[in-house]
């Protein structure tokens, strides 16, 4: 047991500032435990999102000492005993209250993405997919939608390009669909034209903060960009398209 000093941003859309709290922390605790302690004993009305408290639901995304993190997976012993721990809401999204932000924009982006359109199953009613063909999809599908990748993406965070770029979370959702063995849609045009794959300049900030360790940049965004390049800028493909019309066959082979 030891007293720890927390600075937590309190306020709402109209403004706010950091408040200082002294709170007990015991062995094995994570930052969210201490926030809960403050909430129960000192600030009943403090707003913080959380659910599973095991890194599986992606609700408790905040910025701790400037780093975007899940509060439930950030252990107190990462910080020195006398270190002040500063917790603030994600910067890329509008504040609702205290540590809670309005992440509804993300839900709107997801809705814009067309769902899986599978082909017909085999005669016995089952689909066949080899495990090695879906390993990559399963990597993307580990995503817990914490939106920390969206929070650090400077296209969204610093440049506010929310009208032209869907952000890393939905880039890898698109990659999941584009690489899905059962999907029959041609997704390349919308990936570049509607969802803005060209805006990412591969700084890898998203990959660095992903609590699920999804390699968003190398395994999702770069392959999507390559598909776009193959389709739109490869001179032989461009000639072929002129002669034979567009098609998806060449894009769905990897």
């Amino acid at each position, binding site marked *: 047991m030891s007293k720890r000093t927390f600075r937590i941003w309190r306020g709402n859309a109209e403004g706010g500032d950091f408040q200082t709290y002294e709170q007990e922390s015991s062995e094995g605790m994570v930052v969210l435990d201490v926030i809960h302690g403050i909430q129960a004993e000192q600030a009943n*009305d403090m707003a913080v999102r959380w659910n599973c408290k095991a*890194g599986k639901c992606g609700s408790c995304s905040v910025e701790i000492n400037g780093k975007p993190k899940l509060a439930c997976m950030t252990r107190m012993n990462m910080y020195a005993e006398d270190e002040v721990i500063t917790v603030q809401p994600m910067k890329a999204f509008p504040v609702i*209250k205290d540590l*809670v932000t309005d992440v509804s924009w993300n839900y709107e982006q997801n809705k814009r993405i067309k769902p899986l359109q599978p082909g017909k199953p085999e005669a016995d009613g089952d689909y066949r997919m080899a*495990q090695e063909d879906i390993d990559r999809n*399963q990597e993307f599908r580990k995503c817990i939608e914490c939106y920390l990748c969206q929070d650090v993406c400077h296209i969204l965070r610093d440049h506010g390009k929310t009208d032209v770029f869907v952000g890393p979370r939905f880039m890898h959702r698109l990659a999941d669909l584009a690489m899905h063995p059962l999907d029959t849609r041609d997704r390349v045009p919308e990936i570049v034209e509607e969802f803005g794959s060209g805006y990412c300049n591969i700084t890898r900030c998203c990959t660095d903060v992903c609590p699920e360790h999804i390699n968003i940049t190398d395994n999702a965004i770069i392959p999507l960009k390559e598909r776009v390049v193959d389709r739109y800028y490869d001179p032989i493909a461009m000639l072929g398209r002129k002669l034979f019309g567009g098609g998806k066959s060449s894009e769905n082979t990897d």
Partner: protein
Amino acid sequence: MLDVSEIKTIEHDVVVIGAGGAGLRAAIEASSRGLNTGIVCKSLLGKAHTVMAEGGMAAALGNVDSRDNWKVHFRDTIRGSKFLASWRMAELHAKNAPARVRELEAWGAVFDRTKDGRINQRNFGGHRYPRLAHVGDRTGLELIRTLQDHGIHQGIQVHMECKVLNLLTDADGAISGVLCLWRETGRFMLIRCKAVIMATGGGGKCWKITSNSWEYTGDGAAIAYDVGAELMDLEFTQFHPTGMVWPPSVRGTLVTEGVRGEGGILLNSEGERFMFRYIPERFASETADTIEEADAWLTDDKNNRRPPELLTRDVVARAILAEVKAGRGSPHGGAFLDIANRRDPAFIKKKLPSMYHQFKELAEVDITKQAMEVGPTLHYFMGGIRVDADTQETAVPGLFACGECAAGLHGANRLGGNSLSDLLVFGHLAGSGAADYIEGRRGDKAAEFNPEVVAKHVRAATSILNRESGPNPYLVHDKLQLAMQENAGIVRTGEQLKEAIAQLTALQPEVDQVKADGASQYNAGWHEALDLSSMMITSLAVAKAALMREESRGAHTRLDFEGERAEWGNANVVTKKGSDGEMIVQREERPAPPPELEAIARATIEELESGTVG
């Protein structure tokens, strides 16, 4: 005087309460029938506790062992339930689960594959054959995300971070509306509707050590009870045998049964594989009785019987408790769960990635090198709102329930993996049940409710903010959890249960006078206070039902009434609200099972496989 007409009012045909697997599947079904469908959920979409389900969803696809079929699944479910499951629900579940799982794949779920490219299936406690379709150890996340990504294109309106306070009924007692509170703004909303589907999950937050998150406060059972629905089987609260026990802040967090399904074993402090000493007579013929056979099962599960670590959850949880009580527990009061000495690190990381991650990050334990410490944690409500097996309708016209908040499929004990398939099968049926109900309604009866009742409910909620002073809601919640943890735990006595009821009753005045500080916008203390009334009703109903059932069966263990008693073998405990508000708890005899189903359930596995029965 509060003017109810100033509360924003919207309309839906069907309102689904809860956005876990059951709620989403129900909403997809209702919407596919052309109904204006809304979902109201306390958290953001995609965060419900379904994400915590790890092991898989049980469905007799027969992809891994072709001997599997619905009859074997049905038999396993009935036997696991200690013959107290609803026969019809267990039948519907076993028959429909494969189609629901295949449908999920067509909607985008990416399950682990067999060598020939079909959906892979894993072994799990109580299931005769490898039956659980899975994605590593994050199957629940796959299920909820698939339903979410499919559901958002079906015209369903989702009201996120919105808490349902009360159901509203018309002059005939039929469902006519829902009163909600937007957590974000603190504003109220009324929804005029023809049917409601409850899919709120369980009430684990009534206990201190639980795998459940803050949302699971028994809302569905309590709110439905309040308008006249019956509750059933509430004494059967499942303690999952393997929750984390250390560090204290994560005590109770789930450790998937998949660890044991993949070969993990339980050891006491003396290094003994103690489960061999706890094999019940009923399962003796199907369980390995030597370490050699149990180990051989790991590589050849067709010619060896399964290890005792995979006995049903009630058996394993009580065994761990008994070892701890006998002084053979682990340092922090649990048992050791070892996979490190059973499988190589690459296998563990591939099959159990989130367990690896969870222990590494939260307990600084590397499960590829060290054993985990585990102990029982309140995990699941077998009981809940009583429903019709085929339509999921409750005793209240227009009120339906599915998933964990409904009773019937699991009887006295649920098999792991039967929950995710439950969500899909009965979510689907609840959606179509509600649609049939609406289509069958006489004329186009407008949904009406009494504004005075609404005003009363609103005042009850706002008085928590408005009163001058009162108890801290967080501390009241602590007291409630302690009463249940100490007196309505994994083993119970009549004395303890009476003590729980006394403590809860004594706590009621504090619940009634609780005070939340601050304004109404996203006020966590206010939300905590509002959940207390659901937890009080749920806790009392659990304790009273547990006191009535004077036997030990499945997840309900009475130290003063050991063993199953014949006189209770065919009875349910049913709870409802009396005309002057008192809680009525009564025993009800069950109807006789259909003979053909009973024959399947009681057949030996050899009889079933040879086709002489069923």
